[in-house]
């Protein structure tokens, strides 16, 4: 419970900062200036970057893309993973056997490398990254939902529904899905954490949303070169990634129990 509360507080703080970014800073995230690489002071709390842009403003605005990508990817993952998991878990037998094999195979593959390959070819736009990360993370959702559906399928009330003449088209959405909803919600939060984790790694490697839009991973990459001049340039977006992923992780892992 406390875990979940901590996570929720962190997520609300990040969302608030991203949503009201223009009101919280006096500078536009893409507005360049002559005082480049200035260390933190009263006017620029995190100093300025190599093009004289305000680092604080870029960190706050960068949260928007990260949140959209995280939530969007988790949504895509659930849209594919939940029906797949329900189907495999409810049908059982041969369908389940094959589905489980495919899921395990996909989970074993390195998601980051897969996303890297696809992004390099399709080009990094927000929509592309959402779709790619959703595609990379659906097997985890599916495997979890499958396990739950498999258990609930054997429950007495499902047997009763079956005895009363209900078929799969009725039982799955009316009896199985509501009982898996809690697990899906938790997994949704964990998938958001994973998607932000992976997308920031992608942009750190040079495949993020194209500049000049602020993007945490890309900012860390540039900040790395100026670590001894203005450390905040790399440390601030790093902390932002860490806080956001931590928030969603705490929310998701706290809900599961």
């Amino acid at each position, binding site marked *: 419970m406390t875990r979940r509360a901590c996570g929720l507080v962190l997520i609300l703080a990040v969302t608030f900062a991203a949503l009201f970014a223009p009101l919280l800073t006096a500078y536009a995230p893409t507005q360049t200036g002559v005082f480049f690489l200035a260390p933190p002071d009263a006017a620029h709390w995190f100093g300025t970057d190599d093009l004289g842009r305000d680092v604080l403003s870029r960190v706050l605005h960068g949260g928007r893309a990260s949140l959209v990508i995280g939530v969007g990817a988790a949504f895509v993952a659930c849209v594919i993973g939940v029906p797949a998991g329900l189907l495999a878990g409810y049908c059982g037998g041969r369908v389940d056997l094959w589905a489980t094999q495919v899921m395990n195979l996909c989970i074993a593959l390195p998601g980051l490398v897969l996303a890297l390959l696809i992004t390099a070819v399709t080009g990094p736009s927000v929509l592309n990254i959402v779709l790619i990360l959703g595609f990379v993370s659906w097997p985890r959702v599916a495997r979890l939902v499958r396990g739950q559906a498999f258990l609930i399928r054997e429950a007495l009330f499902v047997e009763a529904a079956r005895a009363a003449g209900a078929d799969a088209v009725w039982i799955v959405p009316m009896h199985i899905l509501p009982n898996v909803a809690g697990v899906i919600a938790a997994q949704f939060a964990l998938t958001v954490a994973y998607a932000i984790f992976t997308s920031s790694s992608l942009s*750190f490697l040079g495949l993020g949303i194209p500049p000049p839009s602020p993007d945490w991973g890309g900012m*860390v990459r540039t900040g*790395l070169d100026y670590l001894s001049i203005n450390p905040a340039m790399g440390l601030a977006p790093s902390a932002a990634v860490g806080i956001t992923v931590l928030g969603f992780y705490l929310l998701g892992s706290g809900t599961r129990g």
Partner: protein
Amino acid sequence: MLAILARRLVWAIPGGIVITALLFASLAGLIGSPAALMLGRDATAQSIAELNARLGFDRPIATQYLDWMGHALRGDLGRSYVTHQSVVEAVLPRLPVTLEIGLLALVLATIAAIVLNSLTGARALIRPLATLLAVIGITLPNFVLGLGLIYLLCVTLEWLPSVGWSAWSNGVPDHATHILLPVLTLSAYYYGSLTLVFRAEYDAVARRLFIRAVKAKGLSDQQVSWRHTMPNALLPVITTIGLSMGQLVGGAVVTESLFSIPGIGSLLVDSILSRDYPVVLAIGMIVVFSVVIANAAADALYAAANPQVRIR
């Protein structure tokens, strides 16, 4: 044990072939015409078609895949589009670097996860600390953790030299100081996931009757933990190590890029960014095969240690 592993590997082969074929086809499909990439923007449609024909890229994907596989089995992975160097020569010298960092990180993470969670003295202090470290390891992407470590240890405290790589030939101390941070960074995620798995099992074992029995015989808490609880909780750790091979590869890609280490992870990123198709393909295949083999090994180990598991 060996028989189980052999059977698992045989079963893994179709999976490996399917994935590599998919990888090959999707790369070829996504990239489109390799000749257009090689010749650049000013190439005419005719010269592109000619080069595609000369290099065999106008054939069906299945033929190309079989051809590639045939050459690969004979140790020929083609030439890089960018450096025109043989792919084998580009990849092989970098493999030991990645293996060294990956193995050291794995060993460090495994030992840390097992030892920290098996200590019984001052448990009220150590357990929360171990949990905190695990959550940090799981939630902080490698580049965030690495950057923090670089800032703290290289820039502020100046204890370690800055990023870069120093081979064994430059002397052991130099090598060790350069490898320390990458290994720490890479091991963090593993430490986190192994801690979660190991602790759940450890606590379950600790509640069992035989533990109570050895306690009643007069063993100290720490002796019970080392000799009885910990060894019986190791199985899921072994499986997790095998199953999270993919995660290790992803971590190695980011870590090597961050620390400018000449391993196959950084080569993969560079090749992807410069669309060096043969190199990407070669490393992709290495990754797929190591993941498949690691999974099969994990399955086999699990089955060998637990005879109740049915082997199909």
